[in-house]
């Protein structure tokens, strides 16, 4: 039997397939379409302290091999999350990661602190990189502020591993990765979406009401693979911090590529819209691949792409 299990700091997953925040709702939305019990971990939509209506429509547009979204962190807010969504999450048949976003240190600290005592929440993922909300960007692209934020947040989450989700819109993602680890991140997740834009050339206006949005999907995969590989080799491997890789994962082959680059687990986002059963299929395919590679555990293959210098 192939061992697909993954240890993300304190969080144990039966297999390396996770969902991407914002692409799978709060709990059972995909319940009829995928086997949630076969999911390595479920990651909720970003939760902010206050409710947010989000951006006006159009909020999405398809591009070549990808899509732009400018949802604007539409979410029910912390209070209703605790009241309405947590009871649902308690029934979920897989580990839960709550994604938290905010506009200030206080926002983050208060929301994360509220997750610490909730038994069914296995981990918190900090969204410091959502490019759609003005203030969100600064935490994710400024190493100093990022380190401080992670440090503050880590204090109020003693009971659970903290994941920090990195923005790809930077000079060098290894620098923000290092800052996050220095701040106390237990797990790094990358990448979030790339700031991008699409214009309707007939009406001569942006296709998204918010003008810019975040590019996700297969189009960004080669950049995401590079970033995972770079963070793994420059920072994470030495620090013993596991990586969750994402950005364009559609098939098990894509997932295997992330694993070889240095990701311990992979998250699937845009592909869920096309095939909600994708994580289940990816899990199956990875098992076969691991055994074809002559390995017994998927974890033995993490980061094993052979570099010319090695």
């Amino acid at each position: 039997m192939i061992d697909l299990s993954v240890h993300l700091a304190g969080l144990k997953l039966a297999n390396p397939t996770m969902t991407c925040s914002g692409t799978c709702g709060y709990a059972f939305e995909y319940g009829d379409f995928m086997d949630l019990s076969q999911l390595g971990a479920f990651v909720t939509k970003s939760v902010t302290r206050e409710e947010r209506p989000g951006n006006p429509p159009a909020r999405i547009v398809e591009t070549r091999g990808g899509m732009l979204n400018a949802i604007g962190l539409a979410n029910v807010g912390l209070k209703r999350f605790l009241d309405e969504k947590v009871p649902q999450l308690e029934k979920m048949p897989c580990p839960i990661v709550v994604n938290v976003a905010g506009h200030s240190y206080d926002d983050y600290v208060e929301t994360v602190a509220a997750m610490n005592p909730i038994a069914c929440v296995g981990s918190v993922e900090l969204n410091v990189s959502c490019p759609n909300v003005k203030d969100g960007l600064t935490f994710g692209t400024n190493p100093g502020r990022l380190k401080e934020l992670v440090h503050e947040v880590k204090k109020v989450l003693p009971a659970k591993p903290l994941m920090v989700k990195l923005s790809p819109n930077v000079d060098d993602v290894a620098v923000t990765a290092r800052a996050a680890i220095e701040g106390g991140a237990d797990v790094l997740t990358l990448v979030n979406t790339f700031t991008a834009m699409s214009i309707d050339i007939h009406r001569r206006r942006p296709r998204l009401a918010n003008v810019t949005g975040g590019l996700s999907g297969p189009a960004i995969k080669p950049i995401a693979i590079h970033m995972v590989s770079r963070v793994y080799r420059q920072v994470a491997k030495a620090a013993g911090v596991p990586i969750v890789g994402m950005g364009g994962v559609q098939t098990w082959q894509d997932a295997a590529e992330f694993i070889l680059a240095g990701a311990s687990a992979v998250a699937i986002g845009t592909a869920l819209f096309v095939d909600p059963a994708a994580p289940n299929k990816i899990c199956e395919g990875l098992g076969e691949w691991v055994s074809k590679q002559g390995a017994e555990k998927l974890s033995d293959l993490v980061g094993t792409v052979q570099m010319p210098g090695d």
Partner: protein
Amino acid sequence: MNQRRGQFTGVVCANIPLCREHFKLVMEVRGFPPTKAGQFVQLLCRSTRDLDYVERELEWPSPQRPEVENVDLIAPTALLRRPFSLAGATTDGETATIEVIHRVVGVGTDWLVQLRTGDEVGILGPLGNTFSHPVENQIAILVGGGVGIPPMLYLASELVGKKVIAFCGATTRDLLSLTVTADARTPGIDSIEPLYNIQEFAAHGIPAVISTDDGSYGFRGFVTQSLQEYLDRFRIRGEMAVIYTCGPEVMMKRVADLARARQIPCQVAVERAMACGMGTCQSCCIRVKKPDASAVPLPGQDWCYRLACTDGPVFAGEELLW
């Protein structure tokens, strides 16, 4: 018969041009759950082969399908699925036969047009809420424009034996996705007399008023004009009737206004760009009045967003702010 929504593969029975740009796609789907008018499906507008890479690669070596070494190259035409209203559905044991009517507007629908009998189509569904049927003695007024006609056809099939009248419009006769029976009287250019000459409605015993913007068939003008004349002539108000509508946004807004002015309840099936179709991505938001506990209020505003895919696509006309 399966009661759960899910991912299915439909087999094309027919894909028939109804008029310029509109096609009726009929698919047999094993295990597809029961559906109701108003609901929609998310169609994968490219080969389902694209999704099944797991199984295929594991079959290698095979003379049929190569191992595609670089799966990056599996670049499909339309990445995301496309939503389509159900235009009708019947079941026979385990197998449902569902219909959609699609208008060719882009790459996804261009792929659909090329489907032939026996081809396979990836389906997620059924999705969304449904129309509420009229109560005893209420007249059901079905108002469809262009690509909004399909859900009206499905609704008509559910209302057999009730008091129903249909109003359908198109820019021109060439774009009218309905069948005029050969033996029918041709309606007058300024007449709103309901006739039984539209096969899709007549089959259910439902009279229909057709309008075209250019007068190339039936009433000359917008469907909202013939509707208004009808409502006024027969003094239809309040709970006497219920209006169902689907079509271009400007048309639906006008229909909702006509209904509101006469206190006639109105159910509107809206369209929004959708990624998931099942409430996960928050892309399909629409503004509604009267925020309630399940919707996010904008601070200091009396409106909120709802999701067209799960809170809708059917909304009460009076609550919509668009």
